[in-house]
Every structure is written in structure tokens, then in C-alpha cells.
């Protein structure tokens, strides 16, 4: 065990691999080259189309102990990962690693296969029941939680080698040109799958919508794809994209959004060239809506919006608030429609989006990002991974990537959820280090990091309710009381990797 710079006890050796403890957001620099793929010769008229997933698994040469991946653009509607694990089990493969871009609640279907030893290691964060069971010690399934940028880095830098990437392709031709913009499982951007397509040893496109050559537009090209497999369906379209993402109607949430908007204005960043990212939560969308209104009132022409894209950002693009959208994932149906028709709505890879070890990412060009939080502590550290139960429930997404890249990272969160305070002495798990968070906005006040003294002074001048984060913490706890801390055992069941590959925190088994 080592103690990292945030005072967290983290293992240096975990299930046979060595890890470095987190030091700071900026200095870690591994000495390594980008990964490679074997050369492959394809002669004219050789067919890539295979009859089944099983055939693809055989062709890819998968044997026990190897690593597979899928992407999570189909989110909770995805059936591919479940079908794959079922097939691996039927073929008698064991001790496999899943290195998908995320695991969703729908993938709880693989729990029996985890118990059986078919899959025994998880090189990705998880959402839902699997995380809970891991936290309770009921599943022996070590989890490495990574951010979007961190995942791209781990694959490109060969910390994780994917033996076969199975890319769900909403629209695909027989050579493997594929995109996400049409077909029954259309999900828009395929940003998370790009890295797999470039660096996995073998790449299999799996589609439920095979079209005549050439499939266009080409997101991932035939030059990267080894084989093509068709399935009846890639998933449940209802669960792939939300038909709508909505602004919160909660008055407290709207107040938080208004404060956040005023913080952005006070920061001086809301001027021509403004670049911006929000999530798809109700408060974040309310901020986006306010910012859009202010940009129009002030006549500000922004430069780009990025991240997971919603209909609100599409409106901003079409109304001239942004020149470009950089889209790593479409959150709703309007984003999917837009990326298919508007050339200024650009699909980007998770690598370009956020990998700290490429030669320049989009997040580094962000002026401002709006982030959510499950907990924030008095050092501005943020937790989005574990819930109040102590269970690992959520993946990191782009949280720590955008916080590190943006000039100003604003966390918006209600001061309490249920009866629990959101501002804590110490977060249960550190997802994103406080060093990269500028402001925490709750309905009970705005806390500004000491790294932004000018912003703090300006907010005070504008008579906004600025409070020291400890004062905010005390005020909230005066109402909620101090919750009894969750008790953990010493068993480490998962790691939270920072985007640079160092270990920022560990997930321990909850003492029940």
C-alpha cells in the first residue's frame, strides 16, 4: 500500500499488475511508445463477412485468458456484450477480461458467467448491479475504473491490450466501413470505439443493418476492420438514446443553474470564442439553456461545444452560438439526427477528446465545463463513482478529463439528496481531484477554490452568495446532521485510475 498525494491508501500491486500512486494532475509522464497492430494482408474479393459471433471468436483466435471489448454507445439498450459472454461461455473459454468502454445495468446478465469464471477481470468502470456486488464482495471481479481519456490512453499506451474488439455498428457494409447515424440501432457518434478499431489485435464489426458498399459516412473504415458479423438486432432502440433529455423543473435545481450561469459570466469567459461542455443532467441542461440565452443577448459567438451532445447543444449550434460541436457521444435523438446531417457537428474519438498523452486534446481547449457530483469535499475533491452506500455504482465518464482540461470546472449539485449532505469533510471515493475543480455551486451558496481569487472577488462584487466551502459544509450539516460513516474492510476490490494511469483511489469491500 502507498499513500497518494490526496492521502488515499492505494495498492501498488493489484491482481498481478503494478500501479503508481497519484501525485498531481500534470506531471506523470510514462516512457513508452504508442501501441501497434499486426500487419494483415487482404487480397481482392476476399470476403470479410462471417456467419456468427462464434465464427468471429474462432477467427479472432480468442483463447482463455484473453481480452475483449465493446463500446457503450448503445448504453442500456446494448445486447452485444451479453451475447458475446454467452458465446464465450458456450465455447468453454474462461478467465477472460472485459475491456469495454463501459458496462451498464443491462449487463447484469453476465453475472452468472462472472461467478462461473468465464470473465474474471474488468478493465472498465461499471454502472449498476455488478458494481454493487463487487463492492459487497459477492463477485470476484476486480474492476479498474477509467475516464474516457484514461481508457483511450490505457489502450494506446498498451497498459491494456485488446485481443478482439467487437464493435456494434448501427450501419455497416461488407468490408467494415461503418457509422452510427442510420439503421434501427442508430446511436450517432461512435467516439469510444475509434481507439478499439485502431489498436485492438482483431476488430469485428457487428451489425443489424448491412448496407451495400460503401456505407457512408465512414466513421470507422474498412482498413481497420477484420471481419463483419450480422445479428438480428444490436439492442433495444428505446434504451439506446433517450427521446428527450429535459431541463429540471425543480426550483432549487433552477436556482443552482442560475448561479452557475452567473459564475460563468463573472469569470469573463463568456465572450467570442467561448467553448463549453455540460452533461445531460437536468441542472446541467438548465445551465446550457441559460448560457444559450445569455450568448444570444450579449451577441457572443462561441467556438465549440463538446462532450456528450444533447438537443440543447444542437440548438446552440444551429442558432450560431457555436461554430462546431465535437461529439464523442450522442445523448438524445436530436443529437443523433444532427450528427447525420450537419457537417459542423463533428464526431470525435475519445482519444482526441481527452487522452492526456496524445499531442493535444479537445478538453484542453475548453473554457468551461459543468459537472455533476455525488459528493464533494472541503478540498473540492469530487466523487461520482460510489453512492452513499459505499457501493461502486457509476463510471467516471469524462469527469476528471474535462475538469483537468477546462479553464474553469464548475460542479453543480443540490446541497443534499434525501437526508444526506452532498458537501462532505472527505468524499468516500475521489474521482476527480480538487486541484482541477474551480467552483462548487449549490442552492445554498457558491464555493470558490483558492486557485481562483479574482473570480471569487468578482462574484462577491456581484453580490452572489459566495461561501467558504467549510462554511457551506457546516450549514448543510446543521440541517442534515453528520451521517454515520460507511465502514469498509481492507479488501481492495477495484481501483480508480486517474486519467494519466496513476491510482487516485481504491474501492474497498463494504463491511455489512
Amino acid at each position, binding site marked *: 500500500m502507498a499513500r497518494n498525494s490526496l492521502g488515499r491508501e492505494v495498492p501498488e500491486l493489484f491482481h498481478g499488475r503494478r500501479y503508481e500512486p497519484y501525485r498531481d494532475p500534470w506531471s506523470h509522464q510514462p516512457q513508452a511508445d504508442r501501441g501497434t497492430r499486426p500487419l494483415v494482408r487482404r487480397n481482392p474479393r476476399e470476403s470479410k463477412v462471417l456467419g456468427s459471433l462464434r465464427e468471429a471468436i474462432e477467427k479472432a483466435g480468442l483463447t482463455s485468458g484473453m481480452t475483449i471489448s465493446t463500446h457503450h454507445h448503445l448504453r442500456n439498450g446494448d445486447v452485444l456484450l451479453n451475447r458475446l459472454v454467452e458465446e464465450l461461455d458456450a465455447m468453454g473459454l474462461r478467465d477472460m477480461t472485459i475491456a469495454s468502454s463501459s458496462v451498464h445495468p443491462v449487463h447484469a446478465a453476465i453475472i452468472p458467467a462472472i461467478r462461473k469464471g468465464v470473465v474474471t477481470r474488468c478493465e472498465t468502470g461499471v454502472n449498476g448491479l455488478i458494481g454493487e456486488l463487487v463492492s459487497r464482495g459477492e463477485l470476484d471481479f476486480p474492476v479498474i475504473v477509467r475516464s474516457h481519456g484514461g481508457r483511450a490512453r490505457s489502450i494506446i499506451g498498451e497498459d491494456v491490450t485488446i485481443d478482439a474488439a467487437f464493435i456494434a455498428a448501427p450501419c455497416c457494409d461488407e468490408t467494415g466501413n461503418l457509422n452510427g447515424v442510420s439503421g434501427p440501432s442508430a446511436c450517432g457518434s461512435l467516439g469510444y470505439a475509434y481507439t478499439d478499431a485502431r489498436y485492438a489485435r482483431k476488430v469485428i464489426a457487428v451489425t443489424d443493418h448491412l448496407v451495400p458498399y460503401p456505407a457512408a459516412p465512414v466513421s470507422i473504415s474498412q482498413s481497420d476492420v477484420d471481419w463483419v458479423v450480422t445479428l438480428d438486432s444490436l439492442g433495444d432502440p428505446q434504451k439506446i438514446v433517450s427521446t428527450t433529455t429535459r431541463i429540471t423543473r425543480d*426550483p432549487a435545481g433552477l*436556482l443552482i443553474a442560475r448561479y452557475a450561469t452567473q459564475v460563468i459570466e463573472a469569470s469573463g469567459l463568456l465572450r467570442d470564442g467561448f467553448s463549453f461542455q455540460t452533461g445531460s443532467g437536468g441542472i446541467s441542461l438548465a445551465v446550457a439553456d441559460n448560457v444559450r440565452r445569455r450568448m444570444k443577448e450579449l451577441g457572443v459567438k462561441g467556438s465549440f461545444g463538446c462532450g456528450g451532445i444533447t438537443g440543447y447543444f444542437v440548438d446552440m449550434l444551429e442558432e450560431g452560438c457555436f461554430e462546431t460541436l465535437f461529439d464523442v457521444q450522442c445523448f438524445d435523438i436530436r443529437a443523433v439526427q444532427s450528427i447525420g446531417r450537419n457537417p459542423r457537428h463533428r464526431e470525435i474519438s475519445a482519444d482526441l477528446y481527452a487522452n492526456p498523452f496524445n499531442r493535444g486534446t479537445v478538453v484542453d481547449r475548453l473554457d468551461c465545463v459543468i459537472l455533476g457530483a455525488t459528493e464533494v469535499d472541503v478540498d473540492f475533491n469530487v466523487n461520482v463513482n460510489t453512492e452513499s452506500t459505499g457501493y461502486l455504482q457509476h463510471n467516471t465518464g469524462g469527469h476528471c478529463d474535462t475538469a483537468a482540461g477546462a479553464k474553469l470546472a464548475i460542479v453543480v449539485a443540490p446541497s443534499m439528496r434525501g437526508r444526506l449532505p452532498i458537501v462532505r469533510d472527505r468524499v468516500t471515493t475521489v474521482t476527480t481531484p480538487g486541484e482541477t475543480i474551480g467552483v462548487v455551486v449549490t442552492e445554498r451558496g457558491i464555493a470558490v477554490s483558492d486557485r481562483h481569487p479574482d473570480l471569487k472577488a468578482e462574484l462577491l462584487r456581484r453580490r452572489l452568495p459566495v461561501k467558504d466551502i467549510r462554511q457551506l459544509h457546516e450549514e448543510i450539516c446543521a*440541517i442534515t446532521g453528520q451521517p454515520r460513516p460507511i465502514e469498509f474492510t481492507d479488501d481492495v476490490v477495484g481501483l480508480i485510475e486517474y486519467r494519466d494511469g496513476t491510482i487516485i483511489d481504491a474501492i474497498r469491500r463494504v463491511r455489512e
Partner: protein
Amino acid sequence: MSDRDRLRRTLLYVPGNMPGMLQNIPVFEADGVMIDLEDAVPLAEKDAARTLTASFLRTVRDRQREIFVRINALDTKYAEADLREVLPALPDGIRLPKADHPEVVERLDTRLTETEERLGLPIGTFTIIPSIESAVGILNVVETAAASRRIVALAFGAEDYTASMEIQRSKTGEELFNARSRVVWAAKAAGVQAIDSIFSDAGDMDGLRQETELVKRLGFTGKSLVNPRQIDVVHEVFRPKQQEIDEALEVMEAIARAREMGTGVISLRGRMVDAPVVKRAARTLKTAVAFGMIAYELTDEVIHGKE
């Protein structure tokens, strides 16, 4: 600044029986809050609401805004218990429903004086906002407004008023025009503020804006609200224009010069500046300060000159 002159653009109703909503009182930026023990609280919860409201007032000392309690009408069996439990917890004032006659206000005034004497508080600690919400109330509003020095504002209640008139309330509000005008006259004549009725459709921000613009033109100084989401729209309507602020600042400068010269009247670009003009300018500046639009220290001496 005296109680009478405080800004009361937005008075937000919060049900007295809902702890989740009470805890958010310090959060929203309404100028004032009215904790409701009357219509929002079902009969079975009157007791609980009183206890909760008193306990809230005792616990949350740093309220950051005026807090009124809307008690049940004085002729109900609940009113006495409301006052007995809530007053010792020191609300800023009482919103008195069904103030149909001046005698109703006088009775409350007497009851408040008794409590103040018993608790050793200065007489006049508790203020009153009578609700004018029936045909009778409208007819008597001039006398009602003058019935107590505790009155800081008159509130118009359009829902009960239209019920008493046996008419429907419309969004455009033609049917309320006479009643509203009379409430404003009475308020201005008595030197108190006038608070307009609630706008019950919390989803219709355009309708709320139109109604608020209308009542502002009539002379109302604020509005009762049913939902915190309405606060911003009403504040926006009452937000002074930059030109109004600039003019008000000029007026204050001019009157200061006049006083140095030993007079209370001066000409500003051909317009006469005297006490009423100064008073209106002071009101504009006070509102602008509340919006954070300017920093300006407004004292009685600035407004009225040295004694």
C-alpha cells in the same frame, strides 16, 4: 430602513406542513416568505403545521428575508392557536386573510399588542399584511388600510375575490381592474405597499410576466407567489431600467446641491426636483441596490435632508 419601506416585490407562499419546502426558505431569493397555515394546510394537519412553523422560526435564525405567517381567518377556531404557537417564535409579521372590515385588523392589532407586552417586545414588533379578498373587503379597503399602524402592505387576493363575485378569473384580468385599482388607491393613501394576487399557473411564465407588468403599471409594488420559479420573472419586471437609475442618481445629486444652498427645490434640466421626485428616485435606487445593479447608501438623511 424602516419595515414599511422594505422591498416586497415577491412574497412566496410556503405550506407550513411541508418540512422539505420550509428548509428551502433561506435558499430562494424572494424578498419575503409567507408560511401558510390557512388554505394550503388540510384540517387534519393544522396542529402539525403550527408546531413545524414555530420550530422552523426558532431554528432558522439567519433567515435573510422577511417571514410572515398566514394564519387562519380570525373568525375560525384555528386562528387563536395559530397566534399562540407562532408569535413566540418571532415571525416578522402576520398575513391576515379575509380582512373584510377594519375591525378584523383592529382585533389582530390588539392581540399582537397583548403578545408583545407579555413577551416584553417593543410594541409594533409584529407587522400586518391584510388580505383584501372579497367584495366587502374591497368596499371597506380604505378604512381597513388605516386601521392599524402595523400595516406595511395591502395584499389583494384575486381567487377569493372572484369567488365572492361569482365570476371566473381570467388570465388577462379585466374583471379585476376595479378591485385592483381600489386596493392600490387605499394603499397609496395610507402610505403602505400594495401586493398583487398570486398567479396560479406556475408553468406559464409569459402569462405571469404580462400580469406583473400590468399590476406594476397600476401601482402595485409586489406580488404573492405560489412557486419559487416565479421569483425571477417578477424581479425582472420590477428591475429598474438603467436610464431610470441614471436619472434617479441625478435627482439625488441635484437635491443634495439644493440642500447645500439651503433650499428643498431645484431645477434639473428644466424639471423641478422636490420631495416627491426625490422619494420616487430613492425608491428606484433602493430597488436597484437590491438587484445588485449599483452600490448606493440610502439613508433617511439622503432622502429627507437634515432635520
